[in-house]
């Protein structure tokens, strides 16, 4: 631990190497992280994103610059930079896990542990808890600049996590999937294997044979929907299964009662016609008695009606 700055750039280097394999967005974030750490020249940051090797090579130069620019007490301590490092590593791990789980969605079941670890680190950073030399990294890492990169990065992923409702499928402490979820997965597998078994043959047979499994799954799903114990994994798996069932195997209910429905509704449409006809024919027409108002006799001749003839 000779020089904290060197370490920091090693972290950066690690980020960049990872970023090659992860998505564009992450890469962008990391390059801006490089910005944040004091490299005023954006061109360097950009180049670092493109070529990490070059970046590593120029590292010492920059560390000298840094050392010369800030006095000792404003510097980031070992402890904090260590935390930052861990955060970075776990961040990358989580992102690496997420991307392959995007389709079909398995973000909860495959990445819950890495999210748990990431969260733990972040909580460490953001807690008031003092480090070994009586220091708190919260202020220095989280809110010492306008960009607030670390919270921003974290809130992105947390947003994803919340949006996918993964908390519903994972036990407290991010240890395992909940029993409900496991049970659902079991049922799902059962159904899917049934599909697989019959899919080469006639679809009608599939519809008949897998119906119990499928409807069991459906029921389970709607129960979970009501209890709000669903996460995106379950929703997506169910959606896919339903699509298989309805679209691919065409097992939806056929429209088979056309005749009775038409018969009943045309009967009902027929009723008003009878009603109006019968009331026209049988009901006595309402008559109004005309009243003749009193008018001036002598002038009534030039009144409207009587004048013209």
């Amino acid at each position, binding site marked *: 631990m000779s020089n904290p700055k060197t370490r920091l750039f090693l972290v950066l280097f690690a980020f960049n190497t990872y970023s090659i394999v992860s998505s564009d967005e992450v890469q962008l974030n990391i390059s801006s992280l490089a910005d944040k750490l004091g490299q005023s020249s954006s061109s360097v940051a950009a180049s670092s994103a493109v070529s990490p090797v070059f970046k590593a090579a120029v590292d010492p130069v920059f560390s000298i610059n840094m050392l010369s620019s800030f006095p000792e007490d404003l510097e980031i301590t070992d402890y904090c930079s260590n935390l930052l490092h861990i955060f970075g590593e776990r961040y990358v791990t989580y992102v690496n896990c997420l991307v392959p789980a995007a389709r079909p969605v398995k973000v909860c079941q495959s990445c819950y542990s890495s999210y748990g670890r990431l969260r733990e680190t972040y909580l460490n950073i953001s807690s008031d808890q003092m480090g070994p030399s009586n220091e708190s990294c919260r202020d220095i890492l989280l809110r010492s600049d306008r960009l607030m990169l670390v919270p921003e990065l974290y809130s992105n992923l947390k947003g994803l996590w919340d949006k996918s409702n993964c908390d519903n499928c994972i036990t407290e402490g991010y240890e395992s999937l909940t029993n409900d979820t496991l049970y659902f997965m079991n049922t799902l597998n059962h159904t899917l294997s049934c599909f697989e078994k019959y899919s080469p043959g006639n679809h009608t047979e599939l519809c008949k044979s897998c119906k119990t499994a499928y409807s069991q799954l459906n029921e389970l799903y709607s129960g979970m929907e009501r209890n709000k114990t669903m996460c995106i994994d379950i929703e997506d798996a169910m959606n896919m299964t*339903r699509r298989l069932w309805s679209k691919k195997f065409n097992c939806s209910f056929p429209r088979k009662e056309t005749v009775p429905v038409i018969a009943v509704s045309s009967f009902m449409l027929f009723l008003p016609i009878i009603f109006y006809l019968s009331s026209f024919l049988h009901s006595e027409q309402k008559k109004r008695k005309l009243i*003749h108002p009193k008018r001036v006799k002598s002038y009534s001749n030039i009144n409207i009606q009587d004048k013209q003839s």
Partner: protein
Amino acid sequence: MANITKKVSWSSRADESGAPGEGTPLLNGAEPRLSRQLSGGGNIFHIGRLSTVDLEEEMTSEEDSLRGRPKEIPHNEKLLSLKYESLDYDNIENQLFLEEERRMSHMGFRCLEISRWVVCGLIGFLTGLIACFIDIAVEELAGFKYQVVKQNIENFTEVGGLSISLILWAVLNSAIVMIGSIIVAFFEPIAAGSGIPQIKCYLNGVKVPRVVRLKTLVVKVFGVICSVVGGLAVGKEGPMIHSGAVVAAGVSQGRSTSLKRDFKIFEYFRRDTEKRDFVSAGAAAGVSAAFGAPVGGVLFSLEEGASFWNQMLTWRIFFASMISTFTLNFFLSIYHNNPGDLSNPGLINFGRFETDSVAYNLYEIPLFIAMGAIGGLLGALFNVLNYWLTIFRIRYVHRPCLQVMEAMLVAAVTAAVSFTMIYFSNDCQPLGPEHTEEYPLQLFCADGEYNSMATAFFNTPERSVRSLFHNQPGTYNPLTLGLFTLTYFFLACWTYGLAVSAGVFIPSLLIGAAWGRLCGILLASITSTGSASSCIWADPGKYALIGAAAQLGGIVRMTLSLTVIMVEATGNVTYGLPIMLVLMTAKIVGDYFVEGLYDIHIKLQSVPFLHWEAPATSHWLTAREVMSSPVTCLNRIEKVGAIVDILSNTSTNHNGFPVVVEVTLGDEAPKLCGLILRSQLIVLLKHKVFVELARTRLTQRKLQLKDFRDAYPRFPPIQSIHVSQDERECMMDLTEFMNATPYTVPQETSLPRVFKLFRALGLRHLVVVDDSNRVVGLVTRKDLARYHLGKHGLEELQLAQT
């Protein structure tokens, strides 16, 4: 001056008219300028006469025999009913009134002003509560009904037997509608329909029997709940306006005649003048509760009703509107479990339009105007169809049990048609993430999808409107919308005018929103190639709003208030301009064909409704031709027997009697000295205010204005007042009670002048006198309302007993 010459020429013409044949050429030669005028007028009449020609010819030929035997004709729109009386808006300034005013202190007037505000606050509060009650009841009951039917449909989709679901749905609908229809048809027929025409008449100064009674309110509220829950194509907004008006009329009187409770408060307000002001406040409060549009409510009262406005009254009405909106708001917030949230007003809440979807551009304005024209056309079609239907209903479906049956049939057919549409719809949409669809029906759609036609039909109309405004682009496919518009148009048209209490606002909005959205989708698909502009075109919700405004404007033809209501209900001032343009276009196009729906219904009810202006081309008519004559007059000191006889004469059910004083010299006709109303005479008879009795019993309490107010508004009929033979010989002195300064006009006053006076002052009787103040005739509302401008010039309506 011109008036006099005209009159002279007319009278000369009258002389000539004794001889048949062409008399006008002579006149032509005498005075060319005038004669042109005359022959023009004559021409109009000649054409105008065609419409009533067969009736009149008979009458002139055997006039005398016809007087005894009244002629009967089928009901049509060209009648004036005898059952409608005028309100006494004009203050009766008799001696009692002056006395009371003298006695009243300055403080008394202050208190009166304060109590007016209190009454307005109460009106707003109670109207809001009623709106809240209706809303919650409809939501709960409709939710229950749709749950049951949905459950049933889901069960039967699998095992078969959907026709049973159809029958279940139809039977449920009919049963609920039957309840609503029975209470309307058998207990209070005036509560049928939206109530807006009736309130419009009331504010115009027509006393519609039983329109502002407590019983009407109760029937209205429960009737509207039944009809909305029963799945008819109706809304609950129109009845809110009527309810508000009834609340106002009840609260302001401080008592309920139906419940026989008198709280001994607000006694000063027990007369037509005050009551009518409060009723306009109540109507405003109703609008404001229905749409969450306080300003719109005030403007509605202004546009549709009151002709007597001042700044303080407006301000009070606005107060009532505001209170009503926020009462509703407050209680709904409690119902929705976030008490204290006051930001979600209105029975129908159009929801907020987000900022990016409200954007519109200059080049869209012509499109909006075109949509306005379509709205006007469709509205006119709606009105014409409804007009014929209503005539048929009045003529043939007038027995209450038939009316109930008809309503039930409509409910059943509505369910059947909806079900068939849903059944055969192939439009499946994926379920939204947050389940904006209240009762999604899957039917034959793939799992996880729902039938898009069902969101439009299988829902309360308000929710359908909201989903049409706000659902994502692509939620409905064009075929669904087209079919929906078509069916709903005819259903709504068929439904309005049934014996159920229900409004036409929401169905119109729904029809308009459906075809508006259709327009939006078509536009988007036409211009989808242009990438830059397509994002603006693509939002169909905007077009749905414009379409809704156009359709509603085309049907009811309201302008100012409707614009403000729409703007307030969407909470978006940005749309002010397009909505205004659309409503203007819709009104212009629609008025070219037929009147607004409410005006049609007012006409069909044979109400003597006075429009803003006298019909054009009626200046040549003078008070002499308009007035009724001869007039039944009373002497200032009249024999009781004579009064009783006049009042009990059923053939001449007069309400106002000019009071005359005999001139001592010669045989000159008596001169006018005042006017007295039937209601006053009845109170006088009831209290036996006879000259002889006053002489014998000196201690007798003097009759006060309070005695008249206590009898208001249901004065007992003359038959219930017993007058003994001895009392018949007594005399009654009317000096103290009559209105000593009634408005009078000379015989030569032109019709528009009489009309203006009558309308602006809210008169009930206008005495026509000659140059020496002798009574010649009496002009009443029915005398004025019978002239109207038809297709062929000036026409005259018949008086009829209904």
